[in-house]
């Protein structure tokens, strides 16, 4: 084509055509990348297998997330979980039985009021500790199950009411984030919540990659109770090691967990065969202060040590495996888990012109 422009015998109109063609090719190589705020659909699809003391459970699960901006200051967000649990029939019967669960974890309207204040209304994840808000999505958490102390301070996991949250201050040396909420009582099967109030404050030091957080919840049910918790996260700079820990205390129980993961990225990079491997370790100690059959936690003191090995396959697929040993006064048991999760993320609507 370039020869067309330099050919001495080519008449002027053809030369012009060649220039036009060349210009078109140069000026229109790739459409310009422009950030847009199209609604998105994200989430995870997974299949989990568990064996606790010989009892096997198989759980196919899907957890979709929708985020849709409205104007410049609003955002609608929702995440739900739909799963089916298959487990062996008891009483000497052969075959499997199953239970179904579906429910919304959050369904909220966010108003970005100022640079440092966001007002949230609707069903939201209770801002207590770190696990519930950050690590509970199946495409994020390193282990299949949450920690034993997860119900402390979070109750059903969600609150129904209003919340104020945001970044109080953010500098090069540190940042402070906060959240305060009030939740009404809800007995609806799909939107369960308990009447409570509470909040959370966290301080993060980016140079040290160190974070401290404190949480507090006051349950305003018939019997009012307090829950408090502290958490420390640390990611040593220039390292793939992540250390996460949390302690929580309530009237009936208390406990802590420490989780460590180290992705082997230094062996050929994060996309190499070895670099996709992620060894894990989690230690949990749970102490029962007094009986409460409704709080969703073990009836006796429980200690669990878990070793895991996750593998990040290409195309957002992750394999999760772990072995744990559970120590309880009635007896010890082995916990085996294996699962696969696919994370999806795509626009839910056409883009703007």
């Amino acid at each position, binding site marked *: 084509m370039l020869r067309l422009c330099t050919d001495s015998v080519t008449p002027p109109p053809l030369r012009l055509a060649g220039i036009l063609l060349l210009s078109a090719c140069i000026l229109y190589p790739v459409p310009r990348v422009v950030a847009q705020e199209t609604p998105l659909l994200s989430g995870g699809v997974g299949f989990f297998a568990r064996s606790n003391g010989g009892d096997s459970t198989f759980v196919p699960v899907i957890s979709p997330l929708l985020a849709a901006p409205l104007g410049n200051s609003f955002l609608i967000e929702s995440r739900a979980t739909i799963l089916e649990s298959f487990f062996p029939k008891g009483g000497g019967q052969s075959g499997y039985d199953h239970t179904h669960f579906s429910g919304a974890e959050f369904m909220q309207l966010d108003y*970005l009021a100022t640079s440092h204040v966001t007002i949230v209304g609707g069903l939201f994840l209770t801002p207590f500790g770190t696990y519930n808000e950050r690590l509970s999505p199946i495409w994020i958490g390193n282990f299949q199950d949450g920690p034993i102390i997860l119900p402390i301070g979070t109750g059903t996991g969600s609150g129904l009411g209003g919340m104020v949250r945001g970044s109080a201050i953010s500098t090069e040396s540190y940042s402070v984030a906060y959240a305060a909420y009030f939740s009404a009582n809800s007995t609806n099967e799909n939107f369960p919540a308990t009447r409570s109030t509470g909040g959370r404050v966290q301080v993060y030091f980016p140079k040290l990659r160190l974070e401290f957080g404190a949480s507090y919840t006051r349950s305003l049910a018939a019997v009012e109770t307090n829950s408090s918790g502290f958490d420390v996260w640390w990611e040593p700079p220039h390292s793939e090691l992540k250390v996460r820990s949390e302690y929580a205390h309530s009237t009936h129980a208390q406990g802590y967990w420490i989780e460590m993961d180290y992705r082997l990225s230094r062996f050929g990079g994060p996309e190499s065969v070895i670099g996709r491997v992620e060894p894990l370790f989690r230690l949990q100690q749970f102490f029962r202060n007094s009986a409460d059959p409704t709080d969703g936690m073990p009836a006796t003191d429980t200690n669990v040590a878990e070793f895991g090995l996750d593998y990040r396959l290409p195309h957002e697929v992750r394999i999760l495996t772990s072995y744990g040993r559970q120590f309880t006064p009635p007896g010890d048991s082995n916990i085996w888990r294996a699962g696969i999760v696919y994370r999806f993320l795509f626009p839910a609507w056409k883009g703007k012109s």
Partner: protein
Amino acid sequence: MKKRSLSRLRGVLALSISWMAWGWGGSGLAQSPSPQPVKKATIQNSQAGDGAKKFDENCSRCHAAPEGFSPRISGTIVRHMRVRASLSKKDTEAILKFLNP
């Protein structure tokens, strides 16, 4: 004569391709563009700028960067993360600029 016909043919061909290229671009602009997705490699390799630092400090603390996504939703992702991770407006804008330079 034959040479002149060949030149004319070349001209028609060049014009056709030019028109097609222009029309293609025109229709792309008139409808929704199909820009290149934001790739994980871009997120991981680029260490320049405040946005990269903010992304690393805030987003990577909880989860690995997605392998890639359409720029059509990058604004939505960042707004979602502003609420989830309690980011300030300034940090949010820096991350958005980093994802869509």
